[in-house]
């Protein structure tokens, strides 16, 4: 089984290095090192540089993960982040296939409480160390806020599968006081840490220790804390009540950390009892000193009024020291016949117990011996074996994926061929691959009959049939582009959500066309389109001017939120697009799935050249797609003119339609440089011809400025066909690895003046170094095979569609709260951002 446990006991500020923390540390390090079957996951939300693994020898069965919640654990302190933490835990449990989640300290007060619903299909066990605050609620829970908080913690125990308590007494308390069912509770007891044992304290060490703390006689040792329950004041009084001849022979050494006030109160008690000269308060001591004290003490007195598990008893035994303790709670259960039991509420009883023991060396020796024997019950090895056995008895929930039956069905909104759109071709290919994993119903627009041929498990419907079938699907996918072919999807996205594949980051053009042209100057709609992205009204004056006949700023103002705000999940093809979407609104599930390419055998370049009227020795440079200003047709022409003078065998091919706005300029440039022989413009061509032209090209040019955040289908094809391509270092193009293409500077950076020279330089370098060109071709093909292969992309699609996504927990609102949170320090931000990213 996989068992995750939290860090609240080991590292929580209330528990670390104290009773609970030490207990949990010994327990879990021991369990992990002893357990050869289960795998343990330490989920540390508390201390960044802590490494529990240092203590683990059985490393194959242990994983530790740090989840940054801020130095002061800002994420754990404010209920506003509850969902974030919930998502983190849910994802952690899911990713690691956790069967059992072990809550190590359910009353670590400063942190938010675990919610039951985070642990669906996970068994939850909790260690309960005691319910002392409830048993003594008039003392500990007098304040209503504290009481309420405590009871919330208690309620949280009720849905746990099992409660592990550290003594019979805690079990009895849970049943008696809080009415827990007995079968929910298992007693695991506690044990002594291995570091406690009989040590030979050299005379010099002893002298140094005694001198450091002012001990001048044999002594009675006690440990505890200033909490009245520990009864240190009672012990001090009892000490003073012992018969003087015995008392005067021994000092009382109180070995524990005390606050200034606590120290003052206890000193006062000692003074009042006239034993202030013989009562010593060490305050903080090191582990080594503590063990020396245990070893040197004549007697360890621990007359606490209540303990979940009285560790000092077993620690003293381990050091060979006889013990006196109280006849209450777990103390009498642990002490058994191996400790002298007294009434903690009676100073006289304590005094008598101590005096009787100290009066006779034989009694002391006898109890030391009994303690050593009884100690064997409280060894970690034994306790841990017992706990592992308890965990092994827990039946984990069955894995969900195993139980799932039937083939999933997916709805798919897209244009299909013969619609002239890159997305039509894209969808045709994706569907034919994706349908290997699931059944697909394709919903298309009215008014055309698709030419695509799909396998049997793919059906094509008119979009109006979708509402009747909407509940049949694992998910609904919308292929979204910046054209009117997608208009029919708008209402469906807004109503049914689903997963939107956003091919063009900026849909402004389509939106404008839909509102103003198709909608016949429906400026109200246009206003909705714009305001979805600018809800603050910052574009209202712009809307106003467009409404009065002003030109739209289609490139300058990117729009998509009108649809994207309603998408449950978004798939994009570039990191850049993802960044933009998240920057607009963090509460989005965005996945980057590479645009694909069909990997086909490489063509014989020379043969294709000849088939298309070129000579073998011609060096063909090609630009694909519409010939426009943004595709840098004019600077390319200028660069080519210069190159052609040096390399007369070069030919420049524009495979696409020449845009109107540059037509005259283009033509005059061709004339000016006398390039009519070496430059060819194809006009619109079919996809097959398009592919053929790529096959015959020596160097492709895929230039762009400015960018619309789009990915380029042509570029993917070029890479898949193993051709060397020159691109601008811009937008999604930048995401192609450097080794698989040639990048020239972003025009925005270098300026248009320098652009032709930059293009010229890049081409010349390649022409002069054919080896480099070959190397890039190889790398391009390899990149396509590894990342763009349709099979890989389709699998990625399918996995993403099947993936369970938690409702977004990280929202702009949460980020706002966090920004203003006084507990957030600048140094925390980076780490916390990682955790939030994990929670999305």
């Amino acid at each position, binding site marked *: 089984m996989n068992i995750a446990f939290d860090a609240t006991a080991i590292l929580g500020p209330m528990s670390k290095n104290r009773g609970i923390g030490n207990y949990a540390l010994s327990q879990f390090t021991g369990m992990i090192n002893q357990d050869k079957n289960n795998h343990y996951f330490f989920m540390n939300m508390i201390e960044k540089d802590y490494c529990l693994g240092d203590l683990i020898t059985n490393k194959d069965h242990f*994983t*530790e*993960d*740090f*989840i*940054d919640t801020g130095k002061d654990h800002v994420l754990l302190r404010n209920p506003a982040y509850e969902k974030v933490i919930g998502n*983190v835990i849910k994802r952690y449990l899911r990713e690691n296939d956790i069967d059992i989640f072990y809550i190590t300290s359910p009353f670590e007060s400063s942190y938010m409480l675990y919610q039951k619903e985070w642990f669906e299909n996970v068994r939850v066990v909790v260690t309960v160390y005691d319910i002392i605050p409830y048993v003594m609620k008039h003392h500990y829970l007098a304040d209503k806020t504290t009481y309420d908080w405590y009871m919330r913690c208690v309620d949280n125990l009720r849905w746990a599968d099992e409660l592990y308590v550290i003594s019979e007494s805690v079990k009895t308390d849970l049943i008696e006081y809080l009415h827990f069912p007995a079968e929910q509770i298992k007693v695991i007891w506690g044990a002594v840490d291995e570091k406690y044992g009989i040590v030979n304290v050299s005379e010099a060490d002893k002298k140094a220790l005694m001198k450091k703390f002012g001990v001048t006689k044999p002594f009675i040792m006690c440990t505890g804390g200033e909490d009245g329950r520990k009864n240190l004041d009672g012990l001090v009084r009892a000490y003073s009540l012992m018969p003087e001849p015995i008392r005067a022979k021994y000092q009382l050494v109180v070995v524990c950390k005390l606050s200034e006030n606590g120290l003052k109160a206890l000193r006062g008690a000692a003074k009042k009892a006239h034993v202030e000269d013989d009562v010593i308060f060490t305050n903080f001591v090191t582990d080594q000193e503590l063990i020396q004290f245990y070893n040197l003490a004549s007697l360890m007195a621990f007359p606490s009024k209540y303990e979940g598990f009285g560790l000092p008893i077993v620690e003293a035994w381990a050091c060979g020291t006889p013990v006196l303790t109280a006849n209450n709670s777990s103390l009498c259960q642990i002490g058994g016949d191996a400790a002298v039991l007294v009434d903690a509420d009676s100073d006289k009883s304590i005094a008598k117990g101590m005096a009787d023991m100290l009066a006779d060396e034989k009694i002391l020796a006898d109890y030391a011996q009994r303690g050593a024997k009884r100690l064997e019950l409280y060894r970690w090895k034994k306790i841990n074996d017992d706990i592992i056995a308890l965990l092994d008895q827990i039946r984990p929930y069955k894995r969900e994926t195993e139980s799932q039956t039937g083939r999933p069905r997916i709805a798919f909104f897209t244009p299909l061929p013969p619609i002239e759109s890159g997305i039509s071709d894209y969808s045709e290919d994706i569907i034919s691959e994706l349908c290997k994993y699931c059944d697909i119903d394709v919903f298309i627009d009215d008014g055309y009959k698709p030419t695509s041929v799909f396998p049997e498990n793919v059906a094509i419907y008119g979009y109006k049939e979708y509402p009747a079938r909407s509940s049949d699907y694992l998910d609904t996918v919308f292929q979204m582009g910046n054209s009117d072919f997608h208009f029919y999807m708008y209402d469906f996205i807004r109503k049914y959500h689903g997963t939107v594949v956003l091919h063009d980051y*900026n849909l402004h053009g389509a939106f404008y066309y839909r509102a103003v042209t198709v909608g016949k100057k429906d400026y109200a709609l246009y206003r909705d389109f714009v305001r979805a992205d*600018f809800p603050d009204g*910052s*574009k209202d*004056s*712009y809307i106003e*001017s*467009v409404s009065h*006949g*002003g*030109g*739209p*700023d289609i490139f*300058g*103002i*990117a*729009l998509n939120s009108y649809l994207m705000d309603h998408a449950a999940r978004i798939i994009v093809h570039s*990191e*850049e697009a*993802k*960044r*933009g979407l*998240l*920057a*607009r609104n*963090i509460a989005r599930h965005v996945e980057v799935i590479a645009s694909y390419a069909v990997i086909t055998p490489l063509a014989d370049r020379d043969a294709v050249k000849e088939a298309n009227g070129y000579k073998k020795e011609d060096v063909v440079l090609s630009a694909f797609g519409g010939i426009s200003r943004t595709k840098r047709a004019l600077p390319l022409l200028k660069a080519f003119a210069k190159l052609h003078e040096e390399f007369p065998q070069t030919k420049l091919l524009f495979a696409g339609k020449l845009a109107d*706005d540059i037509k*005259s300029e283009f033509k005059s440039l061709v004339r000016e440089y006398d390039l009519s022989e070496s430059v060819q413009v194809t006009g619109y061509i079919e996809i097959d011809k398009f592919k053929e032209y790529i096959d015959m090209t020596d160097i492709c040019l895929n230039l762009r400025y*400015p*960018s619309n*955040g789009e990915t380029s289908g042509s570029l993917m094809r070029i890479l898949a066909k193993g051709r060397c391509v020159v691109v601008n270092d*811009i*937008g999604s193009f*930048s995401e192609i690895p450097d080794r698989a293409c040639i990048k020239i500077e*972003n025009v*925005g*950076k270098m300026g248009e003046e320098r652009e032709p020279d930059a293009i010229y330089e890049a081409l010349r370098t390649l022409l002069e170094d054919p080896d480099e060109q070959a190397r890039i071709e190889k790398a391009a093909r390899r990149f396509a095979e590894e990342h763009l292969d349709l099979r890989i992309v389709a699998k990625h699609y399918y996995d993403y569609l099947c993936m369970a996504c938690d409702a977004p927990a990280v929202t*702009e609102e949460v*980020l706002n709260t*966090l*920004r203003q949170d006084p507990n*957030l320090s*600048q140094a925390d*931000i*980076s780490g*916390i*951002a*990682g*955790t*939030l*990213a*994990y929670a*999305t």
Partner: protein
Amino acid sequence: MSIQYDKLTKEVIEAKLRQVSVPVTRADVQAAAVGAEEFQVANAAMLDSLERMNRTAVNRSYREIPSPTLRTKFTKLFKRFMRRMTFWYVEPCMMQQTEFNSANTSFAAEVNSELNNVRLRLHTLDAYNAGQDSIMQGTAARIDGLDARGNAGEARIAALEARCAALSDALDAALDDTRREIRQAAETIHVQAGQIESLERRNAVLTEQHQQNFGYQKQFQELEQEFHRLEQEHYQEMLRRTDTLDALLHKDVTDTMTGMQGRIGKLEKLSYVSAVNGAVCLNEEETGEFRVSFSQSGEDAIIRYIFSALGVAPDLVRYLDLGANHAVHLSNTYSFYLSGARGVLLDANPVLCQELEQRRPGDVVINRCLSDQKDTKLNFYIMNGDGLSTMDYDAAQDFIAKNPALRIEKTITIDSITIDEIIREHFADKAPEIMNIDVEGMEMTILNMIDFEHFRPLVIICEMIDYHNSLTVGEKNGEILDFMRRAGYEEFAFTGINSIFIDQRRGGAVK
């Protein structure tokens, strides 16, 4: 290890948390709304102009030209007609204009963007400067604070120095006192050392003496053993001779015995002189041989004579010494003990009894006081003078009245014993040959307790005078004399202190 999260998402969140614009890309700055947010940093008028430029950049010949005055259908138709007519000329002009406009707009946007960058950087620098200023101020304040603390510290140091000086003076004074005391102590020690030296010297002398004493004691013990051996030898010799020699030879035997006793006396003198002060009387000048007597006035010698006259062997007699006092010194029975006789010694004084047991191991020593009552406890007054300790308080007081140097040293209680008990225990078969009564004033009481009908010692020695620290004459106790006579005893001799009575019923034969 850490959890694996999406790095891009993390970057976006981090930028948002830091409240800086998300650095998407340069393209985004121009095209995306995120960029527009940055533009908002610049002044609004400029933004408006930019927006207008954007809006109006594209000019085409077919663009509608708004006309405020002519709004009729006719004018619209006319305009459209004119546009068609002039299209071939106007359109290229408009295209040129559009290109220029586009470049200009784009340039303006660039300028604006750069300006914003500069502003942003300036803003950052300002913030940084402000931060530096406040740090400087903080530092200055801290320096001031440190100065103030420094001054306060100096004042404290001065005060501490003054206190140190005062303490140092006090320390010096205390040191002087201490030195003086040490000097005095040293002198005292010097004197004491002298005393110790002399004590040591004395101790050495004492030790020497002790060793010497020890040597003497050892010699004595050796001699005693030698004596015992010789005694046995001579006893055997004597027995042999007694068997073989006739009565005429008896005198020679007695002489030999006397000679032996003389030698013993001499030996005793040599060995025991320091331990037993004057226990031995000598008449060697007269007789040339030793005659041993331990009694006060030769009583033992007298009795020896009686025994010899009666033919009683002195080594075979038994004695009962009531008030035995010292084992040797002034003892009336010791001479017989030495001869080999044995008996019972009674004394109330436990100290003396101890010595008796030591010195006369052959005798039975009873540390009880004589009384007419059984099982009672009686006071016994231990006096500092030898042989004077008594049960009789009046008697003790009487001693003291007579010799002011005497006093009661100690009063102890002693268990009583009756004379009958002693007799029953030790002399049931036969009365002793010698009964010595020396009980310092209680003689009469004791005599009264004895049943002389059935208990008849051959010789009874009884003290007849009260104690005096000087020689006393003519005060013999007539009461005792009368009593003894009535009991059938005749006074054989009176030594001035003791009377020696002989049993008339046996001694009569002597007469």
